[in-house]
């Protein structure tokens, strides 16, 4: 297997996906067969892609040229450790999601299913192509295919006007982003025909600082639009709830990371004329995004919206790590940059797994109860015990708690921050730990948001939907797999860091220092910092077992079931629990200026608090108004009077003649 070239394997896998999509389209007439056949096969293909990714990490970079639309614009593909790593991410997430889909789309009618199968695989294909693309043109085509297919998936349930609006917002921002990326690439490519050349040709493009910075800003904007960077994040909380759960899982877990991949490929690998302010810019933008995301995640009342804002937060953290890596590299501290980058890459994979898990779980909740509105849920841990358990793991992981995987990347990131005194610039090194505190705040609030997510949905008493059923076999299998992945990555971080070695080597010419053993995580030196999740876990398990055993041994008595006491209050209804917004009430109060709230009357003539997005009101609505105002001005040219139109022609003619006389 290993002798098989990773690129061939990866392209083969993508072609298989394409084939599966098409055959799924054809098989749509037999929905059960199509679902039971295509999705598991798709999982197998995903596994193939993962294997390709693993081989790409160690194999020598490989490339493939195909005749494109024009001779000067070939379709160009490659694999290298960087794309290998992201192929692993994509493949392993797609593996689980496809399994999940096998069961999830049970009730979808044939016509819908055939469309979905085609678009689903098109989406996977698009993401795969983004990773394999080796020139600007191929990359952009793949990028747009990814955007378009995911758009179609978002509007799967297009009868709802909200979903259409979400889809539009999504595609609009994606399109603007793609335009910016295109521009950035062109600035970068400079010479006329470099667009057809491989990315490596861009590697040492000699650009003036101005143009380098322009290229950087444009691509950062473009990829930021995909990654949910602060003012461009607006599509995310709209699109994710609209899409079916497996699609949200893929979009959040994998597609957002494609933006990160793009940043790495372009702004890190290709742009080496680093201006000193790029890193801080990315860092600040990332931090703002993270804090914003988490503050809004905490106040959401819809499970999937909450997760979407949480994705914004996580992308923000990844950008923070990326910015830190840029800062270190600018100052020639490649070893430190490697640590920051490792944190970012680690978190990318973590996020794919736990966010994938959580989205899939929310899909199961939707199927089980018919709603993802948290003010209708509660107490699902009893009706969906297994789903609840997997979701608990996901929640703990995303909240950055040891010994799960979210903590590892957070830890690595903080370690990287603590190395800031090595920077020659003292202001920067003094300010960076402050940013680290910001990261900690974000993570702590993420715990707040996720505890709310889990507590409101799965704990307490049902608020509205009383009947729920456990997820099906396929769904549970998929969630189990992702939970295992979260635990595994939490317990054995060193194994992943070893995988990262070739990636870091490629990016920085230098990996992390070797580890003393697989159970240790000592990225710099054992003196400096160490963390052993295995030991941690074993210690925890031992004390837990011991204390449980001792207490059971000495004081063990069967529990007696009693009614809830609740300080003796006689009346108790589910409505007396915290509502989703009530849980976030302290935040609403403390950060009041940030939240545009309004009271609206609902159908039962009760006042409800509705919290909007300040960016929408502060930025998008004014922009929209400006555009429409301009439009009205332009349309005033068309007053319907022919003499006026003749006058335009006449004046045009006269003016041109006068100018060129």
């Amino acid at each position: 297997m290993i002798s098989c070239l990773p690129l061939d394997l990866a392209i083969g896998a993508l072609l298989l996906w394409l084939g599966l999509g098409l055959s799924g389209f054809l098989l749509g007439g037999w929905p059960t067969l199509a679902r039971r056949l295509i999705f598991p096969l798709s999982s197998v293909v995903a596994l193939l892609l993962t294997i390709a990714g693993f081989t790409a990490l160690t194999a020598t970079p490989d490339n493939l040229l195909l005749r494109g639309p024009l001779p000067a614009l070939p379709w160009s593909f490659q694999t290298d450790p960087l794309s290998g790593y992201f192929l692993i991410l994509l493949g392993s997430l797609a593996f689980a999601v496809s399994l999940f889909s096998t069961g999830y789309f049970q009730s979808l009618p044939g016509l819908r299913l055939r469309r979905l199968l085609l678009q689903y695989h098109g989406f996977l294909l698009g993401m795969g192509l983004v990773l394999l693309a080796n020139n600007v043109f191929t990359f952009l085509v793949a990028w747009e295919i990814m955007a378009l297919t995911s758009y179609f998936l978002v509007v799967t349930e297009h009868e709802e006007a909200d979903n259409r609006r979400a889809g539009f917002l999504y595609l609009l921002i994606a399109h603007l982003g793609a335009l910016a990326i295109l521009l950035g690439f062109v600035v970068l490519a400079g010479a006329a025909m470099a667009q057809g050349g491989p990315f490596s040709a861009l590697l040492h493009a000699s650009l003036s600082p101005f143009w380098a910075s322009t290229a950087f800003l444009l691509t950062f904007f473009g990829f930021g639009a995909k990654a949910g960077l602060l003012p461009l994040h607006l599509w995310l909380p709209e699109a994710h709830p609209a899409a079916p759960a497996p699609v949200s899982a893929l979009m959040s877990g994998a597609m957002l990371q494609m933006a990160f991949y793009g940043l790495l490929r372009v702004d890190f690998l290709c742009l080496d004329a680093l201006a000193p302010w790029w890193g801080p810019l990315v860092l600040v933008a990332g931090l703002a995004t993270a804090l914003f995301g988490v503050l809004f995640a905490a106040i959401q009342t819809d499970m999937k919206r909450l997760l979407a804002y949480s994705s914004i937060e996580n992308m923000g953290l990844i950008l923070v790590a990326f910015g830190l890596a840029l800062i270190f590299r600018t100052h020639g501290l490649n070893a430190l940059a490697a640590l920051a980058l490792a944190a970012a890459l680690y978190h990318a994979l973590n996020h794919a797994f736990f966010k994938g898990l959580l989205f899939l779980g929310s899909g199961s909740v939707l199927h089980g109860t018919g709603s993802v509105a948290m003010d209708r849920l509660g107490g699902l841990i009893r009706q969906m015990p297994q789903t609840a358990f997997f979701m608990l793991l996901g929640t703990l992981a995303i909240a950055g708690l040891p010994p799960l995987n979210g903590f590892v990347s957070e830890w690595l990131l903080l370690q990287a921050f603590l190395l800031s005194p090595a920077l020659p610039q003292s202001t920067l090194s003094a300010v960076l730990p402050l940013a680290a505190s910001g990261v900690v705040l974000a993570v702590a609030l993420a715990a707040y948001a996720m505890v709310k997510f889990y507590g409101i949905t799965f704990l307490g008493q049902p608020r509205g939907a009383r009947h729920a059923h456990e997820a099906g076999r396929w769904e549970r299998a998929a969630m189990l797999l992702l939970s295992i992945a979260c635990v595994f990555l939490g317990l054995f971080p060193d194994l992943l860091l070893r995988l990262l070695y070739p990636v870091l080597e490629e990016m920085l010419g230098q990996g992390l220092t070797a580890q003393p053993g697989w159970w240790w995580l000592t990225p710099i030196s054992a003196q400096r910092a160490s963390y052993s999740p295995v030991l941690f876990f074993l210690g925890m398990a031992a004390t837990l077992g011991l204390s449980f055993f001792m207490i059971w041994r000495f004081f063990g008595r069967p529990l007696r079931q009693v009614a809830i006491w609740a300080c003796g209050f006689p009346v108790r209804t589910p409505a007396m629990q915290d509502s989703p917004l009530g849980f976030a009430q302290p935040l609403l109060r403390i950060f009041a200026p940030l939240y545009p709230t309004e009271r609206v009357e609902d159908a039962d003539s009760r006042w409800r608090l509705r919290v909007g997005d300040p960016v929408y009101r502060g930025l998008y609505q004014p922009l929209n108004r400006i555009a429409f105002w301009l439009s009205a001005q332009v349309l005033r040219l068309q007053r319907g009077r022919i003499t006026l139109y003749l006058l335009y022609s006449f004046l045009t003619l006269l003016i041109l003649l006068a100018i060129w006389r």
Partner: protein
Amino acid sequence: MTIAAQGLTWGIPLLRLLAALLLLLAFAMLAQRRLLTLIHLLAWQGVVLAAGTALVALLTGQAELWFSATLTLALKAILIPMVLHRLLRRLQVRGDVEAVLNIPVTLLAGIALVIFAFSLAAPISALTGTVTRGMVGIALAAVLLAFLMMITRHKAISQVVGFLAIDNGLFFAATSATLGMPMVVELGVALDALIGFVILGIFFFQMRETFDSMDLRHLERIREE
């Protein structure tokens, strides 16, 4: 293309006189309020045009220009004004041409246009031989004046008149300034003019049928708000 020496002595001044007449008629049309007179002026412009073409044919001895002159006379001086005249009566369009701008302002604008046209054509005239000196400028001025008339009139028929006047200016440029375009082109242009006119006729009846009026303001419904 050579012009006989004796032709130069009387022919060229005569051609210039015709050119001046054309310009004068264009001005007159710009100043005219009544539709009927407008059509008469158009016919006169056609006559001048035909005379000019015939003069050029005489001077240069090109046989096909004679043909062209006859065509012009038949079409522009007789047929089209006649049809317009009859249309006017059949459609019972009456009254004055309502101008968008008042006449003096329009005339002032017209004078400015003529100056502009001359200054524009001056370098071109300088390049040409003595024969057609200034002709381009006059033709340009006639075209622009007709254009201005179209802009300032509301009635459909007056616009058509303006349109035809533009055509006359062009024709003058084609014959006098270039001493005749290639025959194929001239034929094509004439054919187009004829078809265009036929279509216009069809059009007027459709309009009449639909709106009961020839006022252009009925044709200002499609607009952006």
